[in-house]
């Protein structure tokens, strides 16, 4: 089984500060891979580098055998992503959002139509396909983003905190969608989360990052055995320590806060 994501000695510096400080890990094709770490560990930075949104300072990255910095467009065809913050167009309908994605990713019209119908039914939003997204709940938006993210048949599916803030029913549904996609279509899933119990139940392999470095990689059971703990959460705490990670609110967090208090739209 080959590695569909290869990261060797990845470095990303912002000025003098090394957000990523020599991280190395690999993801096998077809696996569900959990990427865990405390706040400020470098998770989001690494995902942005893997998904062509940020340039790295050093090290090697191969996504499906290609370097995201050199062959950005080819790499973009091979992954789909659900961001932590919604990236839908609220003024369009669910179906229109799907169409837009298909056009952006150059999916042939016939395939786009069939796949849109298939995916909207899969995430159980078919009966709301002509409703405006701005009327959707958070859970519905997340489900739509999952459907949209894989419209173009990508090999890898990146999910940044996919169940953040959702009720248990929706969370359950979302993980079931993802697990089934992984089983039926063989999509490699790369996710981050703070919900350790979910990660424990779903992931084949887990990498724990802290201070810009990978401190441990292995299956959930393996990690529990190494740290002699009974849950992934305890294993995580054992490896990363229990001290609070106080840090200054990032710009995104400040903006997100302001947005919550005074909705922009």
């Amino acid at each position: 089984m080959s590695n569909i994501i290869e990261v060797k000695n990845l470095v990303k510096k912002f000025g003098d500060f090394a957000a990523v400080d020599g991280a190395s890990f690999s993801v096998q094709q077809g696996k569900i891979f959990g990427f865990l770490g405390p706040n400020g560990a470098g998770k989001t930075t690494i995902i942005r580098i893997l998904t062509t949104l940020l340039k790295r300072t050093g090290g090697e990255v191969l996504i499906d055998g290609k370097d995201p910095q050199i062959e950005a467009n080819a790499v973009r065809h091979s992954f789909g992503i659900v961001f932590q913050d919604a990236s839908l167009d609220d003024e369009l309908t669910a179906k229109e959002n799907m169409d837009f994605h298909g056009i952006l990713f150059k999916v042939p019209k016939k395939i786009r139509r069939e796949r849109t119908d298939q995916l909207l039914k899969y995430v159980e939003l078919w009966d709301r396909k002509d409703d405006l997204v701005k009327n959707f709940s958070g859970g519905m938006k997340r489900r739509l983003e999952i459907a949209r993210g894989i419209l173009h048949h990508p090999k890898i599916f990146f999910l940044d905190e996919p169940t953040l803030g959702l009720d248990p029913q929706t969370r359950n549904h979302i993980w079931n969608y993802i697990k089934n996609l992984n089983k039926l279509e063989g999509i490699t899933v790369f996710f981050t989360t703070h919900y350790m119990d979910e990660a424990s139940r779903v992931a084949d392999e887990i990498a724990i990052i802290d201070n810009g470095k990978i401190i441990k990689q292995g299956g959930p059971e393996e990690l529990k055995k190494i740290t002699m703990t009974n849950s992934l959460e305890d294993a995580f705490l054992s490896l990363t320590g229990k001290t609070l990670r106080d840090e200054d609110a990032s710009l995104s967090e400040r903006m997100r806060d302001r947005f919550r208090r005074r909705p922009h739209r």
Partner: protein
Amino acid sequence: MIGSLGQPILFLIALGFGFGPIYQKAGGGSYIQFLAPGIIAMSIIFTAIFSGIEIIWDRKFGFLKETLVAPVPRLEIMIGRTLGGATVATIQGLIVFCLAMIVGFRPVSLILLMPAFLFVFFIALLFTALGTAIASVLEDMQGFQLIMNFLVMPLFFLSGALFPLSSLPAGIKIISYLDPLSYGVDGLRGTLVNGTHFGLGVDFLILGILTLLLLALGSFLFSRIEA
């Protein structure tokens, strides 16, 4: 859209009828005729800059992220976004034009309406590109407030939209001459009312060159966005 029409209409009515008699007495003729092109330009640039600046929000919380991971050249995204914003700003300008007619404004010639429309579109394009360029570099919406107060307002007030440029003190006149909007306003006034300060040809040329430059700058800065 209705909300953003409020300010231009207010300016038109309040200033138009307020300063009208004084302007007339000073020998300038109808102030409404003089003012209307300036107010049309006002609605255009405020809409245009804002749609460019929306990128700051969109980048983190909105649809722009989706376009940044799509296998589409950044240039195409930027052009699409700029044209879209410019179209909205142009329509805004046209609506204000119609409203100005209701208040008493009369364009001087029907033939010149075509070039007038061109000026409207160029102003819209230039300032949407400017908004995009600024937004590509700013990370925080707070910076947007600064931009509004220290860039857009001066650009508007010193563009000859509200008062003639001919009798300004030398210092302010120089700034007005450096203001891209001055040429846009002058062009609009020239095609709608027949009284230009710089000459239509000059207006067109300078506006055209500046628009192209800003489009190039905007594309360059936009392509370097890292989400």
